[in-house]
């Protein structure tokens, strides 16, 4: 399925739709948020993408631990890499939004801290990988760390930020994805345009990188 082209075209069309409808479509007028509500299509979609890629990366790491197949290891790494790119973009779009909604790029909000820590955890994964020269060993140890890191990621971005006061939408009575805050037009663009569009784009990037890595793996084994 990944060799086909239809999903790449679909990704392009969905993103075209997201950008056009996202910037030109009507949005509900909310106090404070105003037009920044359009960030939903970009910022929130990034976190969805990041979470999906980290979960896929985790699954490939588990697969690697079971079967010891280097292809699984490469896929796990590349999905984690794309996850980090999406997470960084999520943090960036979030802080640009926060500049206008909260008054500062960074205000030590628990959600901001959680997101930054999540990225650090995954950056450490790459440090660990690169510190090991033996391919087999590096693959196994980093797979173990990936499983551990994912388990630690969960409280970091899902549980703790929910327990403390936060300015971020979705907590403490602030607006978020529920029915009162975004209308059906926005919901259609978000769920059918932005989320699948960005996720497919990430999949495409990952797929390209994985293919490069697989080629170099083949080259190595042929030499």
């Amino acid at each position, binding site marked *: 399925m990944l060799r086909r082209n239809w999903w790449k075209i679909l990704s392009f069309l969905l993103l075209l739709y997201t950008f056009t409808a996202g910037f030109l479509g009507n949005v509900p007028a909310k106090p404070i948020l105003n037009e920044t509500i359009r960030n939903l299509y970009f910022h929130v979609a990034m976190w969805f993408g990041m979470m999906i890629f980290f979960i896929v990366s985790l699954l490939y790491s588990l697969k690697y*631990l079971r079967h010891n197949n280097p292809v699984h290891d490469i896929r796990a790494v590349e999905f984690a890499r794309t996850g980090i790119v999406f997470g960084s973009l999520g943090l960036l779009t979030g802080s640009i939004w926060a500049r206008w909604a909260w008054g500062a790029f960074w205000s030590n909000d628990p959600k901001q*801290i*959680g997101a930054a*820590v999540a990225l*650090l*955890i995954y*950056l*450490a994964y790459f*440090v*660990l990988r690169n*510190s*090991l020269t033996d391919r087999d*060993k590096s693959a*196994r*140890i980093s*797979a*173990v*760390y990936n*499983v*551990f*890191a994912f*388990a*630690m990621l969960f*409280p*970091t971005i899902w*549980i*703790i930020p929910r*327990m*403390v006061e936060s300015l971020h939408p979705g907590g403490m009575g602030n607006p978020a994805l529920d029915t009162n805050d975004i209308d059906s037009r926005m919901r259609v663009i978000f769920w059918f345009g932005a989320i699948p569009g960005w996720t497919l784009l990430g999949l495409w990037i990952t797929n390209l990188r994985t293919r490069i890595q697989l080629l170099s793996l083949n080259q190595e084994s042929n030499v």
Partner: protein
Amino acid sequence: MTTIRHILTLFKKEVLLEFRQQYSFYGVLLYVASTIFVLYLAMGQPENTVWNGLFWMMQLFICVNAVAKSFLQESRGRQLYFYSLCHPVHFMLAKMIFNAVLMLLMSMVSLVLFLLFLGSPLSHALIFIGVSCFGAMSISLVFSFLAAIAARAQQNAALMAILGFPLIIPELMLLMRMSGIAFSDVFQSGLISIILLLFCFDIMVVLLSIILFPFLWKD
């Protein structure tokens, strides 16, 4: 039954090793004492929040130093020897118990030194002692597993800090919130939910270590 006996035997081995090679134990103690003394020279008697923050940062660094050696000290040959003797899960559990006890001891020593040098702003001393015991154990569990990873990665102690610091931030944040309660005169709610969360966190770490350690072990 045999499982518990195996773990106990391994635990005794760790304690015995510690007694035979006391320099490392005293080394960490000296590290604790001198760091706290430097803190005292630098800031005298700081405010409550600074006191609390410094205390937990101190625990973090003690833990990295005390726990790192538990795996890093062992040579490849000795690891191979253990591999042929015992089950990896028993080995890991014994290490974790030992590290938790060691860390408990160190954190109590550092607490006493903190109270001695940096003043005692605690209004609920018992709560703080409880929180720091609990926290010391939680931190040591996470770092035990990371030490096992770092030991596989060419005995690299610096790696442990790189891997550990991001992972430990959420836990430290919870611990600081929790211990902050001990400073104010008004008793705040929310303690129970944090304790429960940390407890679940600890259980998760132990379970993951049990599941994942055998993969690190075979080489």
